[in-house]
């Protein structure tokens, strides 16, 4: 029974008679405020943060430099060529947009299901969503070739008297991704307003007071404000939950609506959504494990939180694995030579190593999470989460490049090789993501202070006088 007991420093037990606490260390309202704000209010920066920031900022610069080189030179700097015109840029796009989905899922769907453990990680996950969507949005933007004409994607009255084709999945993508970015940003910001007010009220310098004050909008925590705020938050959650499902479904339509063998399949929308949640949760764990240790948030983001996320990773890994199996079965059952070949080629063709890596990282490695030891040991979950991210990137690579390089006519087959710019952009997009993330950790409330307080296990705060 020892693994069921809930101890003061460990809330991973499952005592059926006691609700496990969601914060450890005898937290009070003031100590929650102090713990979270201390990160954003620290004087100067630590050496570790500076080194991490220097590395990620350098990669970000390399990212934008390579985009500049692409714009002035042309898309020939990529390895994209006949027949693989959708290579790394689209792989990276789908990868990043999928990463983003866990943030919305944690925020919105867990909120609607009244999962209170979300409160410690939702801010963090929503920030990840925004940054991932920013990385994702860049890739289709530069993939259009003539970047300066990307505004043609929007329906606006123009001198060419033309309108976009609203029956094209690529246009649906424009609407889905831009709506997703807008709604995620509003959801994130609305949730953060009370916490920005906290930082405003604690600010010691005029510049911090002015900037946090500006973004806190004059929030004064009135009951009438909270009433409308909670209702707006619930509405946004209820809107974001179906939105996140629609976004990755629409992304999958980019493939499923075309007639390329290996793409033209009805399983894609749920398969893509499950994969997105899978990779997104893995990214939250990847970021959370070091961040909670580094910024002293172990009592708010407890092992139980991580364990819960690992359980979701395990579940979505099973869904993704089931989808892989279904794909193989349907390609055989379809009786279509091209479908059968597409999947034979995916597993045993020139990119078969990518398929093997995908199955290993996405289906086999997460099975470790059946063991409680693995679900609750930070370094093990970090390794698994990183491998899941690798696997999910390769899943998109295998689907996109594998299917395009060998479709119908063998005379039209080709082999895809990425260039140095392709690789630099992939690495650079991680640089952008981590740069934004480090800035977020340093200057904004990483944990939703106002949301953690109501779920504190305490019933009586420690006696403090003003």
């Amino acid at each position: 029974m020892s693994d069921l007991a809930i101890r003061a420093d460990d809330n991973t037990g499952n005592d059926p008679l006691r609700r496990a606490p969601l914060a450890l260390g005898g937290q009070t309202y003031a100590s929650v405020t102090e713990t979270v704000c201390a990160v954003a209010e620290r004087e100067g920066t630590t050496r570790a943060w500076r080194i991490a920031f220097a590395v990620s900022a350098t990669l970000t610069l390399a990212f934008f430099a390579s985009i500049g080189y692409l714009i002035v030179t042309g898309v020939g700097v990529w390895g994209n060529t006949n027949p693989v015109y959708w290579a790394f840029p689209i792989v990276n796009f789908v990868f990043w947009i999928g990463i983003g989905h866990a943030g919305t899922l944690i925020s919105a769907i867990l909120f609607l299901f009244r999962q209170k453990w979300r409160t410690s990680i939702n801010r963090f996950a929503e920030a990840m969503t925004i940054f991932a969507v920013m990385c994702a949005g860049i890739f289709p933007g530069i993939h259009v070739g003539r970047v300066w004409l990307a505004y043609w994607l929007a329906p606006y009255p123009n001198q060419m008297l033309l309108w976009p084709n609203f029956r094209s999945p690529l246009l649906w993508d424009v609407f889905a991704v831009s709506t997703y970015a807008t709604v995620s940003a509003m959801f994130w910001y609305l949730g953060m307003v009370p916490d920005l007010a906290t930082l405003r009220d604690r600010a010691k310098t005029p510049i911090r007071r002015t900037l946090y004050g500006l973004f806190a909008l004059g929030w004064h925590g009135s009951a009438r404000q909270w009433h409308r705020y909670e209702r707006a938050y619930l509405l946004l959650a209820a809107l974001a939950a179906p939105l996140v499902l629609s976004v990755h479904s629409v992304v999958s339509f980019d493939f499923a609506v075309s007639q390329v063998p290996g793409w033209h399949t009805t399983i894609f929308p749920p398969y893509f959504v499950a994969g997105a949640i899978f990779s997104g949760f893995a990214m939250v764990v990847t970021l959370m494990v070091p961040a909670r240790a580094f910024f002293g948030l172990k009592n708010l983001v407890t092992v139980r939180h991580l364990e819960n996320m690992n359980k979701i990773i395990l579940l979505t890994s099973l869904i993704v694995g089931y989808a892989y199996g279904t794909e193989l079965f349907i390609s055989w059952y379809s009786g279509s030579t091209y479908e059968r070949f597409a999947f034979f080629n995916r597993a045993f063709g020139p990119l078969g190593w990518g398929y093997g890596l995908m199955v290993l990282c996405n289906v086999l490695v997460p099975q470790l999470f059946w063991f409680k030891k693995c679900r609750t040991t930070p370094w093990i979950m970090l390794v698994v989460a990183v491998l899941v991210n690798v696997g999910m990137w390769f899943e998109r690579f295998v689907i996109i490049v594998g299917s395009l390089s060998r479709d119908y006519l063998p005379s039209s087959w080709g082999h895809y090789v990425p260039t140095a710019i392709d690789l630099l952009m992939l690495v650079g997009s991680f640089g952008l993501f981590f740069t934004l993330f480090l800035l977020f950790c340093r200057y904004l409330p990483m944990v939703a202070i106002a949301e953690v307080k109501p779920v504190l296990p305490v019933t009586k705060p420690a006696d403090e006088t003003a």
Partner: protein
Amino acid sequence: MNHDRPSVPETPQVVAGLLAEFDRPETLVAAAARVKAAGYRTWDCHSPFPVHGIDPAMGIRPTILPWLVVGAGTAGVLVALVMQWWTNAVDYPLNISGKPLFSLPANIPVTFELLILFSALTAFLGALALNGLPFFSNPIFSNPRFRRVTNDRFFVSISAADPAFGEEATRAFLQSLDGVAVVEPFHRPAAPPKIPAAFHIAGALAVCMACFPPLLIAYARATKSAKPRIHVWPDMDSQAKYQTQTAHPLFPDRRSMRAGVPGTVAVGRLNADERLYEGKDGEQWVTSVPVEIDAERMRRGKERYEIYCAPCHGLSGEGDGIMAQRALEREEPWVRRSLVDDYAVKLPVGSIFNTIRHGKNTMLPYGAQVPPADRWAIVLYVKALQRAQNATIDDVPEELRDKLQ
């Protein structure tokens, strides 16, 4: 921000209301019920997080925000459907593989996204607007103690604007509440702060400047101009490619126009049959048409003639085409060229063929528009016209002569 107001204010201050501080959410709820029962109307509770049970205690009615969101969502659906139908089916019907111009399944994704977008924008902006945010100069921030409202303290505030407010009486009432820690006033400036004139001038200037672009667009739409349209990006006007009559750095002769490889003939360009392609037999014009003559070719010749030749030469070949009539009407110089006079009748067919191909005098060459087989068809039709225009009654078959009388 106003909460940074110095402790000794420069402008005269008056009491804007009273604050009562609590350290527990439960005592705040109990206090709220008593404030409501005491008949105050312009008052509020403040807390670091939403306190459950405070809404009934304060008598807060449900917000209308959900209804605004429902309205915005409906508007989003309508806007999306009308936009997709009007742009793709009405204003510029876009035929994609023969699919219907407007069919709901293909239009659902965009409709759904706009439903969400409109609703979410309304939920977000509506919540801010209903909450009166942004509002930076709230007098409640004048009390530094209130800064703990975003940390660990709970407050009841009663505004001096409340009809039941009296500074001493209200203070005594607040102090009588269970669990109250402190009661303190908060202040506002006695007179509303003046906005500097420079702000008004800058605002007026900004509004005037903002009117320029729409006015220019309206002017451009209302007037006509011979100038080409302005392109934001001149990609189509100056393209990065080698054009005819320009230098090319790659070839030794520096020409961007390339001749065919010597001794080769492009597919379909051999044209070895001199009679068929040149209308010549050695140095002589051919005198008979080198293609098969049938009714189909005659009809083709008539059709081609009426397209390419009749505008000048006229439908009957007498040179009275619409161009000739127009020149006559406008008294412009025009050389009327009949195809059915004695001179034309005597021309060998090869010569007519050659004229169609290369032009003659003021007539432009039609070789590029009319391929050789069609040229011969036209020649045939011209010969038919010549025959018809110079016919006698003897040329008409006996049984039809009566009809001509």
